[in-house]
């Protein structure tokens, strides 16, 4: 850098300025061009486009008409949208705490060295993450099935009715189980990695003061890895509210339970590709985006405040 400046000293002021500009602005942006072009085309442009068309309506007479926020007002009063939100929020409130709680317990157990066979557990728990969510939904769909599923087969051996995994009441827990099965190991690895980065001297000092393993976990480890836990929670909030693959696959074997608006994302898909209501579908997608943002924001606000009080 310095060498360049020294050389440039001999040049005229104008070419010096050009030289500096090229080095400070031109070059970094030149390197960023491939990413920024694709990013603009596949992130910024679709978002802007969706926002744009969500403000229009396709009329039989007159074609595309600007209607302002009317589509959004319609979403506000759309029972289908809110039913989808209700399903995903229920999952959010029940399944996500269970999943993250399990992930934290596993991470703490594996990190503390209490259990044996730690590598086996770490890899075994993580394995479901490696397979496509479509295939895990297919797999669990078979396991839930009342004719080839092993649970129904076991029940029939004991002359019990087949468990109602795919009924109205059973569907949300069944979906929650698929998500838990697939993502617990992933969240565990993130927390485990954060735990491994904590210096063990911190606990050794606490131990000398007579702290038990539980105290160390509760008062030292968990607060120290709080950022990692919050990260997993935010990713889970985003993922759960956007649920699509699992209900979409299960709907093929339980079409009467999973209607086309079971989750907001499924609803947006149906609106666009079955009903060809692109404008309204974009409004639903955006409304979902807003809901996701609100939930993530409230969550971060709450955890931030909790952190400061402590």
């Amino acid at each position, binding site marked *: *850098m310095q060498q360049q400046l020294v050389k440039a000293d001999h040049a005229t002021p104008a070419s010096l300025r050009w030289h500096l500009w090229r080095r*400070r602005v031109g070059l970094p942006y030149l390197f960023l061009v491939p*990413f920024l072009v*694709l990013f603009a085309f596949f992130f910024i442009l679709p978002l802007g486009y969706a926002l744009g068309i969500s403000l229009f309506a396709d009329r039989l007479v007159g074609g595309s008409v600007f209607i302002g926020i009317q589509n959004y007002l319609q979403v506000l009063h759309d029972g289908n949208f809110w039913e989808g939100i209700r399903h995903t929020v229920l999952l959010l409130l029940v399944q996500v705490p269970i999943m993250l709680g399990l992930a934290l317990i596993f991470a703490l157990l594996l990190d*503390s060295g209490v259990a044996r066979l730690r590598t086996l557990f770490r890899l075994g728990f993580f394995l479901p993450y*490696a397979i496509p969510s479509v295939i895990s939904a297919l797999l669990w769909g078979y396991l839930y099935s009342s004719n080839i599923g092993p649970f129904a087969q076991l029940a029939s051996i004991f002359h019990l009715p087949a468990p109602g995994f795919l009924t109205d009441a059973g569907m949300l827990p069944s979906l929650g189980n698929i998500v838990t099965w697939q993502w617990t190991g992933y969240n565990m690895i993130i927390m485990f990695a954060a735990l*491994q980065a904590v210096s063990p001297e911190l606990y050794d000092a606490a131990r000398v003061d007579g702290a038990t393993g539980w105290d160390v976990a509760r008062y030292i480890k968990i607060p120290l890895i709080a950022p990692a836990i919050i990260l997993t929670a935010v990713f889970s909030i*985003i993922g759960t509210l956007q649920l699509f693959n699992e209900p979409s696959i299960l709907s093929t074997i339980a079409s009467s339970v999973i209607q086309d608006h079971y989750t907001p994302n499924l609803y947006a898909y149906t609106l666009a590709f079955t009903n060809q209501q692109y404008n309204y579908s974009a409004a639903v997608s955006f409304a979902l*985006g807003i809901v996701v*943002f609100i939930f993530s924001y409230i969550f971060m606000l709450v955890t931030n405040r909790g952190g400061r009080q402590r």
Partner: protein
Amino acid sequence: MATIAKAPASAQVPASSAGQVRRAGWSLQALATVFLLIFLIYFLLPFFWLIVSSTKTNAELFTTFGLWFAPDFNLFRNLSDVFTYDSGVFLTWLWNTTYYSIVSAVGATLIATLAGYVFAKFRFPGRTLVFAIILGAIMVPATALAVPTYLLLSKIGLINTPLAVILPSLVSPFGVYLMRVYAEQAVPDDLLDAARVDGAGELRIFWSVALRILMPGFVTVLLLVFVGTWNNYFLPLLVLSNPSFYPLTVGLANWNQQASAGGGSQLLYTIVVTGSLVSIVPLIVGFLCLQRYWQSGLTFGSMKS
């Protein structure tokens, strides 16, 4: 322990865990191990079912107990069915998935590495703002993008072509973030300055000095994008309608739909089951072989946030 050789703190683990085990005592250790074993069974049970079921005939799927093998062993018959059904379209899907994943992974990783390196090692006007926008994109719900991406792609006539899957997959904001964090830690400024003094151009410095140091991070992002594309369902479902362009996920979901609808083709159940097994084997093998890369990737992601 060798498995997490990349994690920075791994060297400290044995000392602390040995001390803890001594304190914990035998009964606590047994209790914790049994607790984890129960969950291991839960996590591995569907895999076991899948392996067992892919050795059965269609009739046996219904008549024999799902969690144990049938008297006869039909795996090879099923495998040949998978690869010959529908005039061998499964092999096309397998090829498509591999092709989309490799091209997306290599392209996205190169682009993200270049961008992450620039954000880490150059100060330029707009740096904070542009990076903040990219970070914000990690939080954007994929749904808000899917339908407009479909509409845009159809406007420029790319719908129903491999590019419709590959081009959007080339953008990895998370990859840029990971590479920035990695480059900040791994590439010393002095080294870059030394190369500049020697008169090397910036592109040459990136290509032959920085990229070599960034290799571990590069492989991590490569792996993450590869798996993301391999497992992608929503995007290809939207943008592809010709079965000969389908990836495995969309193809298998399609077969499953036909199997569930009946359609007189009972054969399909065994094909979907065995096809699922075939499509996850490469991923599982890859994950087990390349553990240290994805584990270090997740470590970087969580530590800096």
